[in-house]
């Protein structure tokens, strides 16, 4: 065993020395490789953490949401529907909700205006007051105690006293919220008193959710029913699908890198060929040269993998994936500031390893072999 170890040590000694001799070229390869691992790992860590966050946060979403659809669009739902749903067995706490979107001409941002349920949310605003998400307060520069001015769609100026700002830690779900009292909301949007945006309800027995949902859509055929399971599955698959698509797109980058690695490994310089020729002349066997070259690949790919992965972890969990922000933000004015709960998943690390190291090794195998079978006399002549 010690003989074997000493042999490998010598091989690595030689490999590292030969890598250092061509430091500039190898550094370029290492840098590109590290960058690829970094981008892939960032995407994987970020989507995984977001998915987990969505699963935890939305686990408390209403068990069933009912919305009325008219001409393919979400429409206001009459208050009479609340009673109709309340008659269905198993449904309880049926409640009409009021919420809507508002485009703020002052800063070009979209807000979600909402009337909270006073029974559930203790700090609900009174008439003339508001509680806003941290993103709204930040972008409008309002602090608690001051006034938030909003120009209603009917061109009336509303003056709401900012009672409180929602916990900045929860920005990922609340950044664009503007909470207000029901009468303010109806006056602001000029909504009739007998309609709601949608209806939420609870189900007494969680096993009956599907049954109740079916009864609702039978009783109210113009309504769409969204269960909590639908919401969770939507987010799960949105992130899975996005992550997969991104990886497939990045596959192009991996492929380009593989070609680069192949080129680099097969385009041996005259100097390298001479080196291998001399090694064989002094008694190295073909399998030794292959081993040496494999060590070279291992040093490069493991180095790139470890560095890229650790950098991606720091990027995602200490800098909130700041480099991805422009992509996620799009044209939006409000973008939540959030810190994700650190998550590392063994399956993910294994997948990442598979995606990055395997193609590299596969690409360099044949060139390595080509180099290794070089005849000593062919190069030294």
């Amino acid at each position, binding site marked *: 065993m010690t003989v074997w170890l000493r042999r490998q040590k010598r091989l690595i000694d030689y490999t590292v020395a030969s890598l250092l001799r061509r430091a500039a070229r190898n550094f370029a390869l290492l840098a590109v490789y590290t960058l690829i691992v970094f981008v892939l790992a960032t995407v*994987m860590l970020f989507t995984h953490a977001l998915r987990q966050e969505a699963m935890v946060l939305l686990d408390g979403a209403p068990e069933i949401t009912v919305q009325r659809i008219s001409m393919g669009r979400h429409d206001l739902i009459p208050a009479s529907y609340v009673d109709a749903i309340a008659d269905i067995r198993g449904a309880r706490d049926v409640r009409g909700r009021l919420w809507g979107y508002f485009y703020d001409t002052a800063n070009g941002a979209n807000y979600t205006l909402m009337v909270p349920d006073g029974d559930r949310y203790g700090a609900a605003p009174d008439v003339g007051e508001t509680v806003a998400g941290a993103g709204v307060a930040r972008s409008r520069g309002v602090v608690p105690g001051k006034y938030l001015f909003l120009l209603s769609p009917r061109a009336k100026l509303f003056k709401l006293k900012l009672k409180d700002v929602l916990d900045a830690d929860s920005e990922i779900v609340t950044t664009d919220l503007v909470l207000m009292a029901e009468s303010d909301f109806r006056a602001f949007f000029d909504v009739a008193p007998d309609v709601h945006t949608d209806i939420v309800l609870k189900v007494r027995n969680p096993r009956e959710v599907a049954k109740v949902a079916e009864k609702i859509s039978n009783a109210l055929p113009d309504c769409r029913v969204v269960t909590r399971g639908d919401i969770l*599955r939507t987010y*799960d*698959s949105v992130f*899975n*699908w996005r*992550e*997969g*698509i991104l*990886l*497939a797109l990045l596959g192009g980058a991996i492929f380009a890198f593989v070609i680069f690695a192949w080129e680099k490994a097969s385009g041996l310089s005259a100097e390298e060929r001479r080196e291998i020729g001399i090694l064989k002349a002094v008694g190295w066997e*073909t*399998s030794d040269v*292959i081993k040496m070259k*494999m060590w070279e690949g291992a040093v490069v790919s493991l180095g790139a993998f470890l560095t890229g992965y650790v950098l991606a972890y720091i990027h995602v969990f200490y800098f909130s994936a700041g480099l991805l922000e422009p992509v996620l933000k799009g044209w939006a004015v409000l973008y939540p500031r959030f810190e994700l709960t650190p998550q590392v998943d*063994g*399956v*993910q690390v*294994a*997948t990442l390893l*598979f*995606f990055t190291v*395997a193609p590299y*090794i*596969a690409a360099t*195998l*044949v060139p*390595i*072999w080509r180099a*290794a*079978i070089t005849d000593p006399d062919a190069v030294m002549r």
Partner: protein
Amino acid sequence: MIFHPTILALLIGSALSSVMVLAGAAFGVRVLRRWDIASGRHGQLVLERRTYLFSVLLAFVMVAELLSLLLFVFNADRMSAQFVGAMCAVGTLNANAFGFPALILKIAVFFLASVWLIVNHVDNMGYDYPLIRVKYAMLIVIAPVVLAAAGVQAAYFLDLDPEVITSCCGKLFTQDATGVSAELAGLDEKAALVLLFGSLALAGVVAAVHARTGQGGMLYGAVSVLVFVAAIAGIVSVVSLYVYEHPNHHCPFCLLKPEYGYFGYWLYVPLFAGTVLGMGGGPIAVFAGAPSLAEIAPRVSRRLVTTSMVCLTGFGAACAYAILSSGLILFGT
């Protein structure tokens, strides 16, 4: 479904492996027909040079296949959250008809690939390519299995529909159901335990004889297969009960879950390692007939069989620990 990152990795990996194994098998046919170490023809020289390439290439494929089995099972367990009715890997694998065949084929590839790696290792130690024909004949047998595993796996993932309501392990591994899984679950507990520890003891005896005299390598290979079968039966019918501390929960996959402290890995890793080393390591002794391996083959064989027995002892210890530390009492004390 197919855009799931791990699924993509598995599909790409098996596609790459298939191409490489096919190329290797084609080369194997040429080796079997043309190989003649005594000849100095140009063709022979080309063949000799190529063997270096394929030796490395196939070693790479085989290692990738070993990792891909792990990833496959991991992933099946992880994806159970996305299927209605699934609670562990069983539900995910049961989501369509290709799940379990894919797993079984991947396990078969795992065993074949490991044995091939052992033969390859020994062959590389001899200076005159002593096992080259054996190696490539084996490869020609392995290639269709690798291709079948890749195909069935692809069919499984492509056919995976998140809307399908699958059944959980509770339905599959019960005495009342039909099929192999139910047969295993319904096995008499006492008989299963006797079979499990009996086969381990038998393996121990054969390993001791082998270490002392160098005889019985082939036998040890056969016994390690027996141990594997007995172990799987034992895990499903008895050991799982002790781990779950529940008299009717027979699932061999839930063992891998964090709720049970990942105990399954303490069982499966030594079991698979021990079986594979035994299957490959025992029969290796036969190759002592080749002049360049006369000294090497028995030495390697002895080392592998000893390691195999260490692994199997570890597996037995894990089973014993599960039984002794459990709160469940199956037999009157």
